[in-house]
């Protein structure tokens, strides 16, 4: 039984190793030269690590969001969390131009928290049987927030910055010293691993959760914080990475179900693997130039979303 459960995990680790190696080796600079070690430690290794942390954290945040909302078609990027975090970041940048990174992080997290809370209160008014209205509401809500952010950015000459946050999440700027915030995202996602059972029970419904002696509101708050912090850290460091939190959990769930205790670590590794793959594709497609990983994922993720939406139900 334990061996059976461990198998997907082992497979994911085995798949991740060559991907990480490839990520370390791809680039314009020659690693065999005198500067090879330096390039590796300042640029390649931080980038590879950042991609894996981001992928893992976003995939886990996607699962958490789906358990909170009890809907498969949501992720932080389609519920206004990302745009609200960008809004918080933008407002903090405008209000306190001198503020340190800490202030901005807090502003982004609070923004993400508020945006998600509004989304959750919005969908409470939807008829419960209309499952697809929930992602639709989320998409429009994030669209409205995104338009506000873009407009403020345009008015305040910060459009370049806003454009990166909302449209071109990428890792080409990652070097040592400029990605460490992602550890906080990784830490928040790690919290979800510890709370896996609680989140899974919450997904069974408030009544079941309460019946088992759990406080659904407390678990909900924990989940909200995890989602907001992961999204805010990723937004502030590399910008929006669309659809990863939706695609990876859905596929892992199809293969091994939603017993989060067993599936969350696999989801995290799969998220890291998918993002590494997309990053490598982005680096190779027009070498020596780069495509932002968000552009690659935008196409791939939207395609998979459509497939998930239209695949015949009940055959899994």
């Amino acid at each position, binding site marked *: 039984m334990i061996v059976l459960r461990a198998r997907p995990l082992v497979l994911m680790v085995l798949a991740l190793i060559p991907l990480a190696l490839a990520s370390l080796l791809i680039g314009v600079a020659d690693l065999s030269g005198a500067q090879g070690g330096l390039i590796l430690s300042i640029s390649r290794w931080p980038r590879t690590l950042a991609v894996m942390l981001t992928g893992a954290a976003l995939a886990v945040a996607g699962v958490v969001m789906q358990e909170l909302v009890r809907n498969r078609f949501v992720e932080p990027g389609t519920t206004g969390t990302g745009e609200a975090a960008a809004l918080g970041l933008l407002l903090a940048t405008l209000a306190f131009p001198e503020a340190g990174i800490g202030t901005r992080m807090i502003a982004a997290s609070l923004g993400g928290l508020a945006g998600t809370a509004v989304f959750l209160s919005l969908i409470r008014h*939807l008829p419960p049987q209309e499952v697809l209205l929930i992602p639709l509401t989320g998409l429009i809500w994030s669209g409205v927030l995104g338009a506000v952010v873009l407009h403020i950015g345009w008015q305040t000459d910060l459009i370049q910055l806003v454009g990166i946050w909302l449209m071109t999440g990428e890792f080409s700027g990652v070097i040592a010293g400029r990605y460490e915030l992602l550890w906080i995202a990784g830490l928040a996602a790690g919290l979800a691993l510890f709370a896996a059972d609680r989140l899974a029970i919450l997904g069974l419904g408030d009544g079941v959760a309460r019946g088992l002696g759990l406080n659904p509101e407390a678990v909900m708050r924990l989940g909200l914080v995890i989602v907001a912090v992961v999204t805010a850290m990723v937004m502030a460091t590399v910008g929006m990475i669309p659809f990863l939190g939706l695609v990876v959990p859905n596929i892992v769930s199809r293969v091994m179900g939603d017993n989060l205790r067993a599936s969350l670590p696999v989801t995290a590794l799969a998220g890291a693997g998918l993002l590494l793959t997309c990053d490598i594709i982005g680096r190779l497609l027009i070498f020596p130039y780069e495509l932002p990983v968000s552009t690659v994922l935008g196409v791939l993720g939207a395609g998979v979303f459509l497939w998930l939406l239209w695949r015949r139900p009940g055959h899994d």
Partner: protein
Amino acid sequence: MTSVGRLPWPGLWLMLALLMVGAVYLLAGLGPRADVVLPLRATRLAGMVVLGVAIAVATVLFQTVSRNRILTPQIMGVDALYILLQTGLVLVLGPVGFATLPVAGKFTLELVVMVLAALALFGTLLGRGSQDVARMILTGVILGILLRSLANLIARLMDPNAFAVVQAESVVSLTRLDAGLLPFAAAVTGLAAGLAVWLAPRLDVAALGRETAVALGLRHDGLVMLALALVAVLVAVATALVGPLTFLGLIVVALARPLAGSARHLPLLITASVLAVLMLVAGQLVFERVLRLQSALPAVLEGAGGVAFLWLLLKGRIR
């Protein structure tokens, strides 16, 4: 049935209001350099007229075809299709080849491709998803994201530093109006709007539902395809002029329905068009001259429209 019929009173009042607002927009505070300012304003005013009519007519047609009153073609990603096609044409013809094409020829080519692609894509989608409205709309929204991402990808494959291209596409600006395109856009919009007016009696029948319409002897499916083709053309015009305006059509048509005083398409098309132009011109007047916020109007309209859409969703007005 085919007579134009009397214009209802609200429509007349709206037109009078539009004339007045238009005159104020053109003439107020001209200053000493009227010879420079007046043509500039006239161009912008003409642009707003074309834009308003295009958006209003496209939305009315699209809502009839999709049998849904909270949709606009842009929510379903029709404008993203246009952006993708434009990028695709640049890829096929090369940036230089694309730029050296005459405006009229280039735009005609775009429109033809757009109509074919829209019929193929949205003809199937609307036909297929009519039972499950939420799934159909969600599909449209995601399709829009997919098409936009593809356009983004293609643009970057051609030019890795295509920052500007991507950003310009995603921010609407009424002041960025392409004057060279305007005469052609006006002609196309006039033609399409005229066609829509001519089709109005048939659209009234189509609005009763496919079964009833067929029973009454209407060539329903052909009409739907024709209406979709008009939608594609009008959305292409609007998008080419100012960029993606997702929700303006929703507000305009939602307000125009009660004002038109009838569920028939002729008064609705006219009222919605006049209202759209009025909102654009009056809004621009307020934001440009009074509040001195050059480019805030589209953002305000889009924000309000998005909130209105959310409100309708939550109110269960999806059907």
